């Protein structure tokens, strides 16, 4: 009984624990890149790597703990449409940057 109750609420709403976990992880993943840039202790390329790693991790943390996106059947189409959007963004942003930098290089 308890199990079915968990499943029926799991898709639409989070628990206090899930929001608190997401919130604390997000604060940590925000503080790390800001501190690295403000201190300037790492090299240029290492800092850029850390900024993007922290940003991508935080995006997944918030998708999971705030928007409750997972591989459950209730979220199947949400996940598929998100993956399709990521593919479109990859073509759109990656293609634009590739073309514009190539143009810049040849001019």
């Amino acid at each position, binding site marked *: *009984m308890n199990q079915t109750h968990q499943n029926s*609420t799991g*898709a*639409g*709403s*989070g*628990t*206090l624990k899930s*929001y608190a976990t*997401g*919130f604390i992880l*997000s*604060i940590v993943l*925000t503080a790390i*890149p*800001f501190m690295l*840039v*403000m201190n300037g202790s790492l090299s*240029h390329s290492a*800092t*850029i790597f850390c*900024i*993007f790693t*922290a*940003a991508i991790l*935080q*995006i997944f943390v*918030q*998708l999971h703990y*705030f*928007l409750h996106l997972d591989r459950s059947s*209730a979220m199947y*189409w*949400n996940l598929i*449409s*998100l993956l*399709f*959007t990521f593919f*479109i*963004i990859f073509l*759109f*942003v990656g293609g*634009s*940057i590739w073309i*514009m930098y190539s143009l810049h290089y040849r001019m």
Partner: protein
Amino acid sequence: MMQTQSLTMPGHASGEHGSHDVASTQALGFWIYLMSDLVVFSGLFATYVVMAHNYAGGPTGKELFHLPGALLETMLLLCSSAVYGLAMIAMHKGDKRLVLAGLAAALLLGLGFVCMEVSEFHAMISEGAGPQRSGFLSAFFTLVGTHGLHVSFGMLWMVVMMAQTAAKGLTGPVQARLSRLGMFWHFLDIVWIGLFSVVYLMGVMQ
């Protein structure tokens, strides 16, 4: 006890199931709108990244951006997003007063974010670093301004939902609308992660 439950559950479940199906279809529809909005933002991000070094002799990101301010804006929006989550928990418990308090807190934190952004824009424009100064600044104002407009419309929607919650109570349609507004609000915080990383942190790095 178990038998009573198994006898009463099917009727109850099918009634619940009908309204739940409508709400989940609407939630999926709204999610697909959010995905199309994400494509809009990705276009603006691509424009910004291409234009990021076209200063036209004007000020650079390193001279313009103030990192402690950007960190405070980030924290305001993150707290607002988390507080909205708490309001959603209160909604599932049926606590109307707590939902209204959570919405008011999320609204005030969002208002703090928008006020900081408006004062930042105002300071930049009065220094002569407005959107017409260089390609970099045009792209900056378009990208950050579009996000700020989304947050402003989210706040307007929050005011409307506070009025609906107060007037109608936590009925099925009101709960479905509140959860869609929650999706919108969490989505805007996710877009902001990309924004502070690409615009502010990378802008100061250059």
